[in-house]
């Protein structure tokens, strides 16, 4: 009998807002957090928009040790505070509780500022770069939570956030941990913006995943944090259970350093593994939160992979990419999209795939093209795929339907 891993606390911060309430109402209404970039000058870029977190608390100058925190750490700690408050385990987590975090950039904003100052011939303050390395944010989170366990920072590009949840799930399921923290986060940073701009991956219009006329992605920022516990422990302490993680799959394309394998074979394998791991059938999946970046190659590959895994059911199962609302959070995407999917599942509302107008011939997917559509959602699949051919998929179900 495998141990069961449940989520008892969840925090989220995206361009849609701070916290679960703001994000859920944004998802139900079909709002978009994509707007003109304000944190750096976009002169010279093909595109000028993105999904920045507008919470003034995150941008407020800090003093003392906190001044060394990169924006990445501030996003992560803010999402963690919400998750911990909900789980009400501030003092109750075992000291050895591990932290699994997923990020692509770490503290790149500080790194960029430091390097710019250095290039200008100055002697930049080392404090600028004291939170640069990508494992430091998880170390700050561990310290903030008063934990002494392992920190594992996964940097599998845009799959990282899903991998973090997957590791936490396996850690609890295998009996290695009673509880675990899983997180995914990334910032809006000019470095990445310029990178995706140079790859011509940013949409010059609006991002419209799975649409025939899709022309690229919109970047976002933020993060999500989960408190996960073994079911027995969570029940014993009377915790409110938000959802249960029941399956995880991961694979590698071994195809190209940035482009996905067009056959979708690697992505399909990750989805299939997650579904088998969960002990469910594809027909049991009530909603797919697609990776759906809005780039032509990703969405074609993903549509092919969904077809491979779901067969005749592929044209029926509701699918959406929530990236037109939040932007693509890179290492944060898998975590934020799991959180959004869970909230939508518990609210019984399918998240919309904004900006979807014209079906791509051949995709034949049930893309949710309008907000507020109600449905009974018991089991969801969340996909995340990244550079380097990294694929991850999670199966999460509503708690209560299978509470034994």
């Amino acid at each position, binding site marked *: 009998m495998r141990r069961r891993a449940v989520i008892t606390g969840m925090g989220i911060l995206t361009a849609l807002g701070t916290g679960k309430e703001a994000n859920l109402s944004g998802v139900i209404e079909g709002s978009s957090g994509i707007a003109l970039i304000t944190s750096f000058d976009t002169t010279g870029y093909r595109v000028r928009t993105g999904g920045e977190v507008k919470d003034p608390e995150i941008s407020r100058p800090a003093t003392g040790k906190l001044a060394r925190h990169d924006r990445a750490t501030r996003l992560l700690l803010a999402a963690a505070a919400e998750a911990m408050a909900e789980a009400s385990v501030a003092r109750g987590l075992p000291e050895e509780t591990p932290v699994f975090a997923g990020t692509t950039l770490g503290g790149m904003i500080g790194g960029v500022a430091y390097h710019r100052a*250095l290039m200008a011939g100055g002697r930049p303050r080392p404090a600028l770069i004291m939170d640069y*390395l990508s*494992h430091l944010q998880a*170390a700050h989170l561990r310290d903030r939570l008063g934990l002494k366990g392992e920190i594992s920072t996964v940097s599998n590009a845009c799959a990282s956030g899903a991998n973090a949840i997957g590791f936490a799930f*396996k850690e609890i399921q*295998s009996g290695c941990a009673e509880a675990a923290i899983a997180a995914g986060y990334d910032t809006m940073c000019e*470095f990445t913006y310029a990178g995706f701009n140079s790859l011509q991956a940013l949409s010059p219009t609006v991002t419209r995943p799975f649409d025939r006329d899709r022309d690229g992605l919109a970047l976002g920022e933020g993060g999500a944090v989960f408190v996960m516990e073994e079911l027995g422990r969570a029940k014993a302490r009377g915790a409110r259970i938000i959802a249960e993680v029941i399956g995880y799959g991961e694979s*590698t394309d071994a195809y190209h350093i940035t482009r996905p394998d067009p056959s979708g074979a690697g992505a399909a394998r990750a989805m299939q593994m997650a579904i088998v791991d969960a002990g469910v059938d594809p027909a049991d999946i009530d909603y797919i939160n697609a990776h759906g970046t809005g780039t032509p190659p990703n969405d074609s590959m993903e549509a092919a992979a969904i077809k491979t895994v779901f067969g005749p059911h592929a044209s029926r199962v509701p699918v959406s990419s929530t990236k037109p609302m939040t932007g693509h959070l890179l290492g944060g995407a898998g975590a934020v999209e799991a959180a959004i999917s869970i909230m939508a599942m518990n609210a019984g509302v399918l998240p919309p795939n904004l900006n979807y107008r014209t079906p791509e011939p051949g995709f034949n997917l049930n893309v949710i093209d309008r907000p507020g559509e109600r449905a009974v959602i018991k089991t969801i699949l969340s996909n995340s795929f990244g550079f380097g051919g990294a694929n991850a998929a999670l199966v999460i179900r509503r708690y209560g339907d299978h509470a034994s």
Partner: protein
Amino acid sequence: MPPDIVITGIGVISQAGAGVDAFWDALMEKRPLFSDIGSPAPVCRGRHSRLGAAAPDIDAVLDDRRFRRAANLSKFAVAAARLAIVDAGLDPAGLDPEETGLVTGVTHGAINFTREFHEALAGSGPAAASPALFSDSVLNAPAGNVSIAFNIRGPGHTVTGDLSTGIYAINMAVKTMRGSGVKVCIAGGAEELDPVVRGHYARLGLLSPCKGKDERISPFSEAANGFVPGEGACFIVLEEREAAEARGARVYAVVSSISGTLKPPRQLGEMGDGVFVSAGANGTYADTKEAAFLKALFGGAGGKPYIGCVKPVVGESFGASNMMQSVAALKALHSGCVPPSMIDGGGASPVSSWARVSATAQAAALKAAVVTTAGFNDGGGVLVLKKP
């Protein structure tokens, strides 16, 4: 009980050259692999740090045109992974794609490409930013390249940390094998030298010769004055014991326990005589924490372990460091010979109160090896390897 995991292959790209023999010879001969790589920035009080353990010309080692434009970090990783796969007696072109996993540890990542990409962006604007540099600057680019090089399609992860990155990578490889059921996992780490990174550690007072004297790494010593940076890559092949034995593989060691924190391992009974400690000490403040941990572990009753430090020879190569320490431990277990300790003062060193400090290599009947590291800001780690 989860299946035993064993180590069957090792591959090293260090300044000694390609392959584990060159690396091991340098350790046995106490031959620091440092050369003058130029001064990036003045360190404390006008002193300059000039030395580094630079890797060999990697293009002469890696004969694979697919990666000719990749960052050095990826080239080091692909070359070291190939050596490890071959050393394990596996066919680099014939791995079982879906039954093989990959875990790569990095600290600064492909920092030269990262810096060059940003230099162009900040200096000349977005139009000058190169997509090729960006693609290969991503932290998991080495993992992507290694997966392509050997057609690895199982779980693949990149893990980050500072001094403990390699132990994190092995820890994650063990978790990945147990979580996904893959029978083989290639795990390793890589690091590149970069002037901006060196300049930053110099500013922080962590680069030798920050406190004067010679430029070198003096582990666990009062005379320590910082670290000398290094680069390279080091990979190992982990396998389920049953699968390794079924194909008649040479087994270097069994992974007995691993922790991504400085937590005492459970099997204390085996500690002491017959143990080799491959320490991570690098001549910085991290040594104090590591020494305190080891002293608490071995300072009581029971025998004294042998001890050796690789960094005075290969430098501090972050993402690759723990892996190189692990390879020294695996070679010692397998050959029955421990390399010189590389600790100042020999028997007069405080370390000799709890370990056998020796200026020369010694024959030793080892039962186990312990790889330790105390990170700058990560959690540190302990890997216990047992003789098969």
